[in-house]
């Protein structure tokens, strides 16, 4: 089966600043869940930002192909409409923009791109209700402005709810587990597991092995100093738990 995501020799820096990614190679196939772990400052969040097209980063070398297309040539909004989804580590509060209005605009932007008819209010609402039920989320979230006044857990659940609505081909979860208590972590993980699909790939960026107890990955990678220094299957995460990153980081 063809690759969903192919990263080759990716080097990137913070605009006008230091190099953070120093040659990343990564292949992700449809249906796979990858975990990218590593110490602080290894470049994990930079990788997710570069893949999502966040301004403020410069790619200096390498290629990223998504479904065979040059991902880096697309602006951020086009990447999203083509099925790349970033669950933010820090979801942004947007006062005055209603969650439902925002989500419908986002959903219909993607549908237009794919040549599908836009959903009317009723169809949209039906879809929303199904997803809320699937993820076991109350509908009070929807009446509020985007992320405004949400608790940390609510924000993360809202990210997963958006993912469920937008049905991406590639979902990048950037430290989705950070700041969550155990109940919230379980709820978010359950949501992600329900969204696992043979056509969809998930890349989880995390600091803690804990998340991998709930969302069991197919592949685990260690990112250190801008490079992937070790990879393995799901048992590798448990091994890391025992040995830590230090010996891998030093070797890098």
């Amino acid at each position: 089966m063809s690759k969903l995501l192919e990263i080759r020799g990716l080097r990137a820096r913070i605009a006008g600043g230091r190099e953070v990614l120093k040659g990343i190679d990564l292949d992700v196939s449809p249906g796979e869940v990858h975990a990218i772990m590593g110490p602080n400052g290894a470049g994990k969040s930079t990788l997710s930002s570069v893949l999502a097209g966040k301004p403020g980063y410069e790619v200096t070398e390498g290629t990223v192909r998504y479904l065979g297309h040059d991902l880096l040539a697309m602006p951020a909004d086009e990447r999203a409409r083509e099925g790349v989804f970033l669950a933010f580590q820090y979801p942004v509060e947007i006062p005055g923009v209603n969650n439902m209005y925002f989500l419908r605009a986002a959903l219909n932007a993607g549908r237009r791109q794919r040549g599908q008819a836009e959903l009317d209010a009723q169809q949209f609402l039906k879809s929303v209700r199904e997803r809320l039920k699937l993820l076991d989320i109350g509908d009070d979230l929807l009446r509020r402005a985007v992320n405004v006044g949400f608790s940390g857990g609510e924000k993360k659940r809202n990210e997963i709810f958006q993912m469920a609505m937008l049905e991406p081909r590639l979902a990048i979860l950037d430290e989705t587990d950070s700041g969550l208590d155990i109940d919230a972590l379980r709820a978010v993980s359950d949501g992600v597991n329900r969204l696992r699909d043979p056509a969809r790939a998930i890349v989880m960026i995390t600091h803690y092995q804990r998340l991998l107890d709930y969302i069991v990955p197919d592949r685990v990678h260690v990112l250190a100093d801008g490079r992937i220094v070790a990879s393995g299957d799901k048992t590798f995460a448990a091994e890391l738990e025992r040995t830590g990153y230090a010996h891998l980081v030093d070797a890098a």
Partner: protein
Amino acid sequence: MTDDSAPFREGFDQMLATVAEPVWLTFRRRAEMDRFALLGFPTRRQEAWRFTDLEPLTAAAPLPRAAAGDDPPPSPASLGPWLLPVSTHRLVLANGHVAPSLSAGPPLPDGVWLASVAETLRRRPDLLEGAFGDEGGALAALNAALFTDGVVLALAPGVILETPVEIIHHTSAAGAHARLHIALGAGSRATVVETAMGPAGDEGAEGGPAGRVASWGNTVGVVTLGAGAVLTHLHVQAEGPAACHTATVRAVLADRARYDACALITGARLSRRDMAVILAGDEAEFRLHGAYLLDGDQEATLSVRADHLGLGCDTEEVVKGVLAGASHGVFLGTLAVAPGADGADARQVNRNLLLSPTARVDTKPELEILADDVKCAHGATVGSLDEAALFYLQARGIDPETARRMLVEAFAAEAIEAAGLPDALAELAHRHLRRWLDGRGS
């Protein structure tokens, strides 16, 4: 020293020679014209006008038309987009004269007087005698001297006027001086929507030399609220790009009266709205919510002064500014609490969004607190669109232009929502906001 009143004198003398109106009014007009001659047009040398350059107006101020029939009234179709989506008591003023053919509404309930100023002077001059004067500076003086017509709304005590009063000022290629007198008796309630508009684009703009304005609407509003009376007053200023719009509003509130004002300013090459609200009685309340949204070479000033005289009065002001192109917005807000006006609670916020490096804003919040027991808070901010929010929207597939529009709309809409307007008024305000966003093309 030049006499700024000179260009107006010929038409003024002609008008006085032809109109049939009460003698007291003729005296009043003469006194106001003399007052204007003494004051002259405001200049930037005056503190309150430091940021407002009237030069595009004063270089050759458009003169009033002598009679109602001098200009064709606006077509009903052109008014459509500006009308409330419900039944109203509508009065349309074309260049300062009420146009009966465009004005209509259901029968008025008992205890309600709603008519043109001209008709009121004929049939109920008592409602206007004594209601003139002391409305403000030079522009109000010129209005009082030259006014051609206007609207009078007077409610007897305890009368609730459910149907909104809708007043449209249509100004094209002339100087229009109209008056709005609102007097609500104790415990009465009314809703008034005032829309100032003119020909869109360049149509009808006779186009003076570059940089000058082709039309000038100069209105004065006199609001008197009796004890416990409530007035909701939405002002939409959507004049064309060659227009100048100036307005002076003076409101006096008795005990427990409430004045809910909302101002949405998007039109005119040059505009200024001066509001002076006197909370004279105890526990009176004043709310001002609004926004100015400007683009191109537009300049707009919103100036508001709230004077707390009574005990335990309450003022809340939330004003947003959106400045694009090379536009210039000015907010002047003074909260004043007189000696002994204890228990005052006054809050004022002015937030501005600059959408271009050449846009400009001046914001000047001021407190004049002469009482001891007061709560006053004010704040002003100037910023640009939140980059993090822009990226968040784009990361969900929303294109940059739509994302910017969503954020600007949300920013300005907050002021409308905070106003808590009745549904029909809120719809008109939001429709107007979207119209501005559509026209701008981001």
